[in-house]
């Protein structure tokens, strides 16, 4: 579903601040793969997602999504294939616009937008149904601006928005890191449910190793822009935090990650 070959990205090339963020990275995701991504701060996790989404231009390498070469496509052109959720709950929604307007905009992801009515009655009914299934009580607040929602509610809404029109690949970048532990668990459970129910292919960056081990069918560990460890299937199911620390403790000098 997602094929990445020889991907490279260097920031501030040719200056004293030169930083090779992604270094000759190959990654293949099969359809339905739910891959968690860990690595210490600055390992290149966010950069990898930004390169896949086209927010950054690649220096070298190729990105294919579902067999189509998207290297060189602009961010808004790739949006047709990708769903994205960011760490900051404020990033994924337009605060001054209503819940139903945000959903309607998300449903048109990657499609042309015209002069027809933005939120129709039939779509509103569908949104109400989808929201009530999330159990957050948002179905009765369709016409309220998103700015009134809590961080967890906003992140859950973003999750629904990203999957309203099913993406070929879902990109999640530490999307529960800014939430309190209880809300983070709720949002994470919702994430897993949405991914498995819809058989989505997902790449989920997390700052929490327990989470990385617990969720998904495959885990990769990034270090200095390269994949340092790639584990899947039975081997991943049997993996423990202690084992990972014993093998990679030296490069995982990050308290939060191990916590």
């Amino acid at each position, binding site marked *: 579903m997602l094929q990445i070959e020889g991907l490279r990205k260097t920031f501030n090339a040719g200056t004293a601040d030169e930083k090779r963020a992604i270094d000759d990275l190959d990654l293949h995701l099969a359809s339905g793969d739910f891959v968690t991504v860990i690595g210490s701060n600055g390992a290149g996790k966010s950069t990898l997602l930004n390169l896949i989404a086209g927010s950054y231009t690649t220096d070298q390498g190729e990105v294919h999504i579902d067999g189509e070469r998207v290297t060189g496509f602009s961010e*808004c052109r790739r949006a047709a294939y990708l769903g994205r959720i960011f760490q900051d709950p404020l990033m*994924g*929604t*337009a605060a001054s*616009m209503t819940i139903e307007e945000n959903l*309607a905009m998300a449903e048109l*992801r990657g499609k042309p*937008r015209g*002069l027809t009515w*933005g939120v129709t009655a039939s779509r509103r009914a569908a949104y109400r149904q989808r929201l009530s299934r999330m159990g957050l009580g948002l179905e009765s607040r369709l016409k309220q601006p998103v700015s009134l929602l809590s961080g967890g509610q906003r992140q859950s809404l973003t999750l629904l928005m990203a999957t309203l029109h099913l993406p070929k690949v879902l990109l999640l970048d530490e999307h529960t890191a800014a939430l309190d532990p209880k809300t983070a668990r709720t949002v994470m459970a919702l994430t897993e449910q949405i991914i498995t129910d819809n058989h989505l292919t997902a790449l989920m960056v997390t700052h929490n190793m327990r989470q990385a081990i617990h969720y998904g069918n495959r885990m990769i560990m990034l270090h200095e822009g390269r994949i340092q460890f790639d584990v899947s299937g039975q081997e991943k199911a049997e993996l423990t935090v202690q084992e990972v620390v014993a093998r990679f403790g030296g490069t995982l000098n990050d308290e939060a990650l191990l916590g």
Partner: protein
Amino acid sequence: MLLEGLLRTIPVSLEQGLAYGLVALGVVISFRILSFPDLTVDGSFPLGAAVVARLITAGIHPWISVLVAVATGFIAGCCTGLLNTRLKINSLLSGILMMTVLYSVNLRIMGRSNIQLLTVDTLLTPLEQLELPRLVPLILFFLVVAVGMKAAIDLFMHTQLGMAMRATGDNEQMIRSLGVNTDHMTVLGLGLSNACVALSGALVAQDQGFADVGMGIGMIVAGLASIIIGEAVFGIRTVARMTLAALAGSVIYKFIIAVGLRLGLAPTDLKLATGVMVILALGIPALRGKEKEGKLHLRGV
């Protein structure tokens, strides 16, 4: 005496407020919806006036002249948008550049600094010939135009395209990740904004009977003053409220100015007074230590 004087300023404030309210509507689209501090306004307002004056005096039908004026305003706004999105020029500077360029363009269009329209038939001539006090049909005319434009903006901002435009001003990264080219939205929005402003210029020129190359000076500050006054009354929760606030604010602003003039404010000090009004409105929250409330969220500055 004083009260009677104040009452007499109401009709003319209403007429002027609605005519210039189209500028405030344009400012709502750029500053409020797109969060783009567009200063093109000081050039696109006289642009509308210049085009209409030149075409009407050349014998073109007033309706067609107004349409052409609106179209040139649209193009001027798009140019500002392109300077910002294509050439990556800072948003404030893009507007200032276009405003400066338009000064020369307006002089070229008119061929001189001032064109009289008192002796030719304009769009408003039939209204002025009615057997009514002059202001009554004019107030009705500007009411229909301003409210019609407000309604059109309200409707547009709830279409798929309009929602993408609002999201561009609200959360650019988010709407881009949903596949919208935010550069296109910025260019289109600034085009619409300045089309509104040019329409205002075109109608005001016919109302006052002349177009002048200097008639746009301070227009953006007056427009901002109008929306700030209106928003204090009506808030900004929905698009319909923002546009209502712009029109009502424009009328109240013109009324305040008229009252000020009656109370002895020198006409030459008008722009000083307007500037002080805007400075106070934007600055008081900061002095009170509540910076966030007063701040306009703006992109590209």
